[in-house]
């Protein structure tokens, strides 16, 4: 009777743990990564959003100073100091009550509680709260300004172009003539043969 040798009773081989990332390569850019190309003076660490700011949006706290360009692909709240430009296309930009911004701003919607010196361009709407101070030119489709807000500058309202109405036919269709009376001359449409 043959018995299994102990060396035959090897435990089943476990697959080796991969030393690095899984087989499928990670995407080059994580879809929700914040791209903030700017110089931040504060040490980089996990930012804890202030209460009231919904998750999924970015925020610069009141003790943060940024000099440079900010590009955001999600809603952004700024409550610190910014010098440069801020672009937040297709998203909402909120300027908090402690913010002091010397920058040009571009976003879909801009809500202003703090102080801005610079031009503001919102494709949809600008909302200037009563404690806000804005010196600069505004370009937007809609504007709401509360009593008490300070604003110095010009306002250009650029309303979105309305959908084109269906064009009425230029001329009504003429019924074809049954017969041409002798001697009568009627203009022949271009491209048709006259008889």
């Amino acid at each position, binding site marked *: 009777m043959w018995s299994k040798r102990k060396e035959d009773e090897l435990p089943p081989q476990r697959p080796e743990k991969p030393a690095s990332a899984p087989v499928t390569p990670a995407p080059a850019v994580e879809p929700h990564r914040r791209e903030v190309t700017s110089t931040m003076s504060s040490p980089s660490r996990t930012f804890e959003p202030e209460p009231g700011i919904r998750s999924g949006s970015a925020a610069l706290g009141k003790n943060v100073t940024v000099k440079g360009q900010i590009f955001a692909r999600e809603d952004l709240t700024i409550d610190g100091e910014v010098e440069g430009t801020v672009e937040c296309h297709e998203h909402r930009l909120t300027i908090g009550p402690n913010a002091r911004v010397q920058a040009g701003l571009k976003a879909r919607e801009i809500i202003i509680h703090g102080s801005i010196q610079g031009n503001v361009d919102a494709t949809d709407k600008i909302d*200037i709260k009563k404690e806000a101070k804005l010196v600069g030119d505004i370009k937007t489709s809609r*504007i*709401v*300004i*509360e*009593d008490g*807000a*300070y*604003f*110095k*500058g*010009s*306002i*250009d*309202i650029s309303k979105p172009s309305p959908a084109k109405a269906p064009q009425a036919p230029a001329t009504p269709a003429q019924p074809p003539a049954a017969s041409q009376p002798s001697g009568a001359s009627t203009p022949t449409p271009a491209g048709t043969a006259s008889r």
Partner: protein
Amino acid sequence: MKFGAPKGASSKTSTKDAPATLTRHSSGFDQFCSMLKTQENLSILDMSGASQSNISFVTSFGHRISSDDIIGTMQEVLGDDFFQNQQAASTAQRFLEQTLTFPDESFDGALVWDALQFLVSPLLEQTVEQLLRVMRPGGLMLVFFNADEKAKQLPLYNYRIQDAKTLLQVPRGGTQRSQYFNNRMLERLFEKASSLKFFLTRDNLREVIVRR
């Protein structure tokens, strides 16, 4: 003829005895609106500070509006003592540097409201010169002056547009008047303008349309 403050006048701004908000019909503003309705792509200056009603009204015609709170600048730069501080060249210069800082011929229309009646010489003439500088030829300015010769205290108002003929006067304090302006004085003040048109109203407000 110089425009000067009466001797011993002080100009403490105060909210005491401030009148209530007033609604008034304005023939001058009605005339100003004729320009808004008949022309396109105008650039209008509102010197009563930014307000939802004024912005909505002007932009509803497709025009561009600029806001500048001249009374606010006066209070900030000239302080409580309007008249005394206007006389100081450095203070007057600071006021001019902060108001009407627009390029030449920037505007087709200006709603100056009643701000000019609180200024005295030489700052008054300098401000009028700046106004004419920023207006385009043919542009219209709407200016108000209190016509009550006996009034010693004048309220400060924010002017809010209700419609093409109606204004809302929202009080923002009061001050002692600098001087009384009659028609002759106003003609001299705006002598560089091409024309003046006066509207005298029942509530002692002289409305003037000045054409650059």
